[in-house]
């Protein structure tokens, strides 16, 4: 075989002090489908963004058909024949399918007007070639996500893309649509294109891809020939590291049930979810992003509605869709997105810390800054928030300190049950350990903790029990001693009943 289509050697990328990608290797041959897999945060997206010209690599070699390339922007990458198809396509909703495919390079007739006939003809031909005829005159707005992806793929073929990267294309598709997309991928492979396919679904990866590259913690781990490897081997590569030493887990005596969720269902989001969290216990939701973990937590706390089922805290029924009511029963919620949901970024540390306890601070219905200040001071110092003044705006703090403010805001409510959704996402390692210690101590004082985390080591290090959520259902439960990286990862990526 001649030169590989795409070769990366030792490619690294850091954002400030955070290394997002360390010495990544990837070799893509023409006429093959190459899977890229790894946990969330493993560096797949960073790698894709470097290939697609969105990020610049700090070091390493990037060869396209044997030639070293340096993309300045996505336009350079496109011109070189690289196309990226995202999970959520980025079409212009008000333009037609044909206009979307030819946007920016429309053909003109001899008199200088748009050659709509040619656009239509070419679009019809392209989509037919992909086996999915789509009306060229339809507006992109009304198309299903699957059809929008087909339009994106058609567009990439029409600009002569040689490398097509599909970033979790199947996450939002139904079974039939997935089969159709895999058919298209095979066809493109047979036409000699190189395809990088990112997916969390092992069945797809194993049936579609010729080679599988595994990444973990921003580092390249291994490239396997699909025919010569097993799912177990891949899972081992994805999680292979020592677990448990990092997190100071305090052994606690587990008390009575605090949170009881029974048959909670929100149609199309999650179904028949039942679980219990007891006093002093840390229960973790493990699973892939998009499995429905946050959605369940949001419904339990009452930010979102649900269709049926019940939630009780300390035996009392939690009202639906009423966070204030949940808080009165002793619930606290540290949301996933601290910048939008956890904090008012433009408000002071004090305002944020006291936001959830504003009613209890009031005297005779009135509240003043001097009533709020001691509380803000107490919680800021207990969590060692690094700021010099209480009226500093939250947006001036580092990510880790912002997260401490969110935690302080909820600890101030003295909850019986604290739900924490991705509590350590995007914060530095030191603060991360502090957060873990804090949650552990909190459980030690008898608080029930429900934690959602996409980081397996964190889940295994912190949890008394692990509940695996997959496609909106709790599909597996492991006690602390029984949970291993392999079986949790297996449960998160496989349908029930397919257990090995």
């Amino acid at each position, binding site marked *: 075989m001649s030169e590989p289509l795409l070769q990366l050697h030792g490619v690294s990328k850091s954002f400030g002090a955070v290394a997002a990608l360390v010495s990544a290797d990837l070799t893509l041959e023409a006429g093959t489908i190459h899977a890229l897999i790894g946990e969330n945060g493993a560096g797949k997206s960073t790698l894709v963004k470097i290939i697609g010209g969105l990020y610049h690599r700090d070091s390493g070699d990037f060869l396209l058909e044997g030639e070293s390339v340096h993309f300045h922007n996505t336009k350079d990458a496109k011109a070189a024949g690289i196309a990226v198809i995202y999970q959520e396509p980025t079409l212009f909703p008000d333009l037609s399918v044909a206009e979307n495919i030819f946007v920016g390079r429309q053909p003109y007739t001899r008199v200088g007007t748009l050659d709509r006939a040619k656009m239509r003809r070419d679009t019809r031909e392209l989509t037919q070639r992909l086996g999915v005829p789509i009306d060229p005159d339809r507006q992109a707005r009304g198309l299903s996500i699957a059809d929008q992806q087909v339009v994106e793929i058609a567009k990439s073929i029409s600009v002569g893309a040689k490398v097509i990267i599909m970033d979790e294309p199947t996450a939002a598709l139904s079974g039939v649509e997935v089969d159709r997309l895999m058919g298209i991928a095979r066809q493109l492979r047979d036409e000699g294109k190189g395809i990088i396919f990112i997916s969390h679904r092992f069945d797809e990866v194993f049936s579609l891809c010729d080679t599988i590259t595994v990444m973990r913690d921003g580092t390249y781990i291994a490239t396997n020939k699909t025919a010569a490897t097993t799912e177990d081997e891949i899972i081992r590569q994805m999680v292979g590291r020592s677990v448990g030493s990092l997190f100071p887990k305090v052994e606690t005596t587990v008390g009575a049930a605090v949170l009881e969720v029974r048959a909670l269902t929100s149609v199309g989001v999650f179904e028949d979810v039942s679980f219990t969290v007891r006093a002093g216990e840390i229960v973790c939701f493990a699973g892939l992003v998009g499995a429905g973990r946050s959605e369940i937590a949001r419904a339990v706390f009452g930010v979102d509605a649900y269709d049926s089922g019940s939630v009780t805290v300390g035996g009392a029924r939690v009202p639906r869709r009423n*966070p204030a009511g949940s808080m009165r029963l002793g619930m606290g919620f540290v949301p996933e997105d601290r910048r939008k*949901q956890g904090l008012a970024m*433009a408000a002071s540390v004090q305002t944020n810390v006291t936001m959830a306890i*504003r009613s209890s601070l009031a005297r005779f219905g009135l509240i003043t800054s001097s009533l709020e200040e001691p509380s803000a001071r107490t919680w800021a110092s207990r969590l060692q928030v690094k700021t010099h003044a209480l009226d500093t705006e939250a947006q001036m703090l580092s990510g880790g300190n912002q997260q401490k403010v969110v935690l302080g805001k909820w600890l101030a409510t003295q909850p019986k049950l604290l739900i924490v959704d991705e509590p350590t996402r995007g914060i530095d390692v030191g603060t991360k350990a502090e957060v873990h210690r804090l949650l552990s101590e909190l459980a030690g*004082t008898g608080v029930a903790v429900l934690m959602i985390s996409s980081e397996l080591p964190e889940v295994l290090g912190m949890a008394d029990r692990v509940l695996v959520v997959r496609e909106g259902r709790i599909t597996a439960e492991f006690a602390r001693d029984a949970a291993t990286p392999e079986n949790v990862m297996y449960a998160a990526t496989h349908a029930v009943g397919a257990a090995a």
Partner: protein
Amino acid sequence: MSAATSAGTIAETGGARYLRHGRPLWRRGLLRTEAAIILAVILLLAIGTAVVPFFAQPYTYSTMILNSAPVLLMLLPVTLIVITGDIDLSVGSALGFSSAIFGLGFQAGVPIAVAAVLGVVAGAVVGILNGVLVTIVGLPSLAVTIGTLALFRGIAVGLLGTTAVTDFPQELTRPVSANLPGLPVPVVTLAIVLLAIVFGILLHFTPFGRGVFAIGLSPEAAAFSGVRVNRTRLILFVMSGVVAGATGVYYTLQYSNAIGTNGQGFELQVVTAIVLGGVSIWGGRGTLLGALAGGLLIAALNKTLQLAGIGSDTISIVTGAALIFSVVVASVAGFLSRRRRGKAAATPAVGA
């Protein structure tokens, strides 16, 4: 102070010491829009007194208050609405609608007290409609209140046609526009001060008010903190409607004139005053005092220019320029202070 390297536990209060405020008092207190606007009002009145003939008499001040009373009243609840990030442009029409209902009721022989209550209810209806469309239907308040602005103006004008109800009893109209005994201050000032205190406490010294700011800062974070976001917004729209309705009754009696065009254009004066007073049109920032000061500045500006014999078109130009100037100044000041604090934050925090 020892560096906060060792992680604190939740049981102990760690070694961190915090200043209550990052900036000294004079900068927090004086470098504010409210202070600047109040200063501008005082300066304007001083200049007017010194320069404009006939300015320095009690009558000037009492008519200034009387003329601006409707705007000063209505801007109080609307300030809270703007702080949540919404807007209410329908208050002028709510005033007109209330005035029309009040006038018709009185004309039809309903006891005047009952007619007045009907007027207030009319305002409340506008507020409820706004609130329901914004919170339950989920439409943007700008679009909704532009709609109700046109809708209720149309109804008000339609109800009364070209006629006006003017024969209100003098024993009611006279005290409404009278001065407080022995003072050059109209009676309505009492209502403005009282309502300002009520809304000021509500906004700045109650958990409800904290929720109002939280919604303006981040509706999502507010909802996650247990603020009943939609309920709060609905309550504020209804309050705004009720105040506009009551203002409609007052306005009708003050001029002894119920006509469909009463209060036309007041909504713009209300919003202008609020923004001029340093309330962020994006929500989350501002004070009631600032909004009131903004209203007074517009009143003083109008009066001064009017007495100086300058036409209403010029007054309009000056008001508009003042508004743009204040917004530009606020945004430049915000940019500068962010940049300064950005630099300060880049240097290691000082333990005190």
